[in-house]
């Protein structure tokens, strides 16, 4: 791409020009030849600087490398490669100014501006400079446009061009750690009880091998052909399938004028939900049903796979709270969530309306006519201490650079 190099005199250049005019004026008024010679010695470098910055930036381009997706709090490296496509003339001290802004953030109009210096790019070569970035908030980040400039060799004239190309990076919510309580909560046969897990299918799971007979084994498991060959009883082994399906409702309610704790609670809920989704989809083998009550509302239902996780996290990266939905409406938003025997968890930024037994019956699904079974339903209020039973929030991102330094 052919770029237009803008050339302008720098602040130091203006000072320099003033000195030249001062000396040239003295030379003209006083008819001092040596001052005129000195003027020539000062004008020459100015012109050289002007021409050199133009040549230096000709046929130079820059490109940026970014990761595909990251989580808030992660540290990653932004690499900017400057390429000199000329056949001769090395480019010296290219100043690369990159801009980073979180879209929708308070400072979107005043993005972070990072100045990097590419020491030297030889003809036909490229040179990469890097900076490390730690996004602290989820969302969409815009990188660019990049301005490349140089004032080499004297800093009197600044030549620059802008690469208007921008890149976007989706930053997922920060991930924390799920506690063993959470694992127990999800693995329990029904939420609120401690029954053994029920096996799936007509048999007792999926066949995966043979072993010798042991007391207590069902006669139906005997593999007669193998037993005949071996002369002793061999039974089939089955992988026991637990029902790890999960129905998750993320209730991102927020007051109309939220306080900082309200904002923090929302982020915590999203982080919790993201952690649950990531964990579940990483393990696989279950179904995930997720509904988000927020702006905008959204619902997913399907096998817990990496693809589903990416889709959900993409949404969670940008999901916003809502203040117009009551707890009842929140539940009624998603009448088809899960099945009757699936664990249902509501991660909410408000208190559990089912804590009041009198009020509980009114929260029935209006469309399906089927209330949420009380035993398989858990409301987690992210404002209180209850969350700590299930979730360790992510580490404070602000300490990331400092820790490494220490």
């Amino acid at each position, binding site marked *: 791409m052919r770029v237009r190099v803008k050339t302008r005199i720098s602040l130091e250049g203006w000072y320099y020009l003033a000195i030249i005019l001062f000396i040239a004026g003295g030379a003209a008024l006083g008819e001092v*030849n*040596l001052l005129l010679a000195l003027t020539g010695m000062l004008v*020459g470098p100015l012109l050289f600087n002007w021409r050199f910055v133009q040549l230096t930036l000709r046929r130079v381009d820059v490109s940026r490398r970014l990761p595909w997706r990251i989580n808030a709090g992660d540290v990653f490296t932004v690499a900017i490669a400057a390429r000199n496509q000329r056949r001769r003339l090395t480019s010296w001290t290219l100043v690369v100014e990159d801009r980073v802004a979180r879209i929708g953030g308070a400072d979107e109009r005043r993005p972070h501006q990072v100045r990097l*210096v590419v020491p030297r790019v030889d003809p036909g070569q490229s040179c990469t400079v890097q900076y490390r970035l730690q996004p602290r908030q989820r969302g969409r980040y815009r990188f660019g446009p990049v301005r490349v400039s140089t*004032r080499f060799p004297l*800093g009197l004239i600044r030549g620059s061009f802008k690469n208007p190309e921008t890149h976007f990076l989706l930053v997922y919510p920060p991930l924390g750690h799920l506690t063993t309580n959470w694992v127990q909560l999800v693995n329990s046969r029904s939420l609120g009880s401690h029954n053994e897990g029920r096996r799936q299918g007509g048999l007792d799971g999926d066949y995966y091998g043979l072993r010798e007979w042991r007391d207590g084994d069902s006669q139906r498991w005997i593999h007669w052909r193998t037993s005949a060959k071996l002369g002793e009883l061999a039974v089939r082994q089955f992988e026991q399938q637990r029902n790890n399906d999960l129905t998750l409702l993320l209730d991102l309610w927020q007051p109309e004028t939220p306080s900082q704790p309200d904002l923090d609670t929302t982020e915590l809920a999203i982080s919790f939900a993201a952690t649950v989704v990531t964990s579940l989809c990483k393990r696989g083998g279950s179904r995930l049903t997720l509904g988000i009550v927020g702006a905008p509302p959204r619902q997913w239902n399907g096998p817990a796979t990496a693809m589903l996780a990416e889709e959900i996290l993409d949404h969670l990266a940008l999901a916003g709270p809502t203040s117009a939905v009551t707890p009842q409406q929140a539940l009624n938003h998603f009448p088809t969530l899960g099945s009757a025997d699936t664990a249902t968890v509501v991660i909410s930024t408000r208190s559990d309306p089912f804590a009041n037994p009198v009020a509980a019956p009114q929260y029935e699904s209006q469309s399906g006519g089927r209330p949420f079974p009380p035993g398989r339903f858990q409301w987690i209020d992210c404002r209180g201490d209850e969350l700590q039973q299930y979730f360790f929030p992510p580490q404070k991102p602000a300490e990331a650079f400092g820790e490494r330094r220490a």
Partner: protein
Amino acid sequence: MANLTLSIILAIMASMSTLMLGIGQRSPILPALTLLAVTNSVIFTDKLGWFRLNRFVANLAMLVAAFFSLYGFMEAGSERQLMAIANLLVYVQLVLLFQEKNRRVYGQLAMFSLLQVVVAALLSHGLEFGALLVLYAVVALWGSVLFYIHREVEQVGVVPRTRFGWFAPSRSRRHAARGDDAAAAIEVLEQGQALNRAIVTRRLAAPVSSLVLATLVFAPVFFYIVPRTGGANWQRGMSGQRLVGFSPEVSLKEMGQLLQNDQRVMRVSFSNARSGEPYTVIGHPYLRGGILALYSSTDHRWQQGLGSSQPPRTLNSPPDARDLVRQDVLLEPAGNRLLFSLYPAYAISDTPHDLRIDANTHHLLRSAASDRELNAEYRYSIVTTAFRFGAQLPVLPHPEKLVTATDRQEFELAKQWLRHIDHPEAFPQLIALADSIVQERAPQGNNYDRARALEAHFLNTEMYRYTLALTEIAPLRRPGVDPIEDFVANHHSGHCEYFASALTLMLRSQGIPARLAIGYRPHEFNFVGNYFVVRQRDAHAWVEAYLEPHEIPQGVLYAEEEHAAGGWLRLDPTPSADENQGRGRVGLFDRASNSLDYARWLWNDYVSRLTEERQKRAILNPLALDRRLPLAGLLDGDFWRVMAEQARSGNWRVLLAYRFNWRAGLAAVLAGAVIWLATRALRALGPRLRRRSRQTRSGPRHAPVVAFYRQLEKTLARQGLRRSASQTQRQFAEAAARHLAASPPHADLAPIPARIVDAFYQVRFGHRLPDATQEAEIRLQLRQLEQGLAN
């Protein structure tokens, strides 16, 4: 943040600029003081950090320096005021040198250094200043580039997001290595000294050399094409030199040792007036400055004597002589109106308009010269017929043709004066000696023969001795006896004025009109520039004796100049030490000396004292091919005046045709074609040369990548760990790890060399370039190692 290389270069700049000031001030004190200060500041302030002036103390010191300099500034005279300014600049610079260096201090040091050069340009104009200026430009350009890099590296980082831009406090404007806010934290990996080192490499010499070369080419072009408006008046007024030692009077009363004064008086070059070729002069020419006719025996002083009632007149045009020789004289500031020349002198087109000839004494002088002009150098060109085949003719024609009877009467009266001896009774032995010589050597001869006989008396006898040590003859001097009489009759020792005075009086005693001529007889010839260097020690006195037309030997005057007024025979009775002095075998030292002197002349002519007239004649006109090249036309005020007139009259066709020159156009087209072809050839050859260059290098593609390994070696080398020739890189890394592990503070750094060597092996032997993350990791490791070892 201090940068030692930059500090050293700025220290050199400071020393050089102060040295230039010292040349202008003719004082070595400030340069010596500065040299001492910069040495100490670099060692104790910049390198060791033992001594640093804080800003308050530094400002206080600068104020004291300003008051101190103000005292000198109050003294009258622009030169003294300039020197006061120069002193102030040096004092402030000295204070700055001992401050902690940062961007501000570096900038101020550079600025003060440049201002010193500006003041030095006003105070001095010699070749030494020019040579230093060129050297200073080279150093200053290097320093400027390093300063720029320093500034640029300092600004690497996250730009603070201030709302107020330039009005924000300076601290908040500074770029930080890390930026931190609610949305994101940013850290720049490469910065500071490491980045500086990556830029300031040996390869930086190429663009800086180009910069220096471009500057040194551009500056002269700029200097010569910018039109002058005057005649380098500042240099004329500020020279401060005066020609001392020469006086239009001669006194024989002085006693004591006369010192040989090497001060340069003028440079005289001779050239063929028609061809412009240098004219080879045989022997040493007599450059006459004045004529003294009256000797007072009471105060023993020669004076002009003949008062001038007529105003000086302009010089005549030259006759159509074969050997018409041009004299170009560059006279150093003399302080008087007297000029020097070989006679007869004639005017040419280049002769200054203010040059006149005295109607009675017939010597050249400047008319209506102000004090300022008299204290400036003066350049004049005239022609003469004084030479024939390179030799100066012994007789010069009387300049007046004596056409009218009044002229002849006046001349007869003048001749009477020139035969007159004041108080002849004071010279009994001199007159008697003259009589005897004439009787003996030219009893029947004419005035020419008699004059020659008297001259020979001084030259051919060993009785007389040339000496400047008048103290030697002081005991021999007889009180009450005229010095000339005493010289002839008694001690026979003296310098040229004694010899010339004695001969003049002897000639007069024989009725021959004679006068004392004073001027210079240069012995130093610069064969590089083809000119005579005339110094004070070349001051000389000789005699001119009048000859009637019939007494002038045949062939010593050009036919056009042979007329009824007769001529003046030049007689030089002073025994010469060595006629061939200055023309002998030329040694290396002489060559160097001549070249230096010629360079000085060129510097004066074409740089420091380049005038508008000389610029047009020597630079613009040759460039303009008879001033018709459009470029020269653009620089010419007349051109624009004519253009404006033509435009007002609507005569556009004339405008288009004005000064169009086919020769210039053709030359421009040819020059353009040559440049275009050269560019094309370079472009065509460039890739081949680069390919060849690549073939000679091993693995150029890897060169930038494995630089990280070289950095590892360099870092470890600072700890005394160097890879021996027999070690592989891995062995070296293992050895380094053992060494680091053995020293407790560095134990945690021990694994780093091995990691970097792994990456190096991957690149060097696996031909796998590291990706961005690996690169970042390698840099991080190297930085940790550097920082860890530095602590």
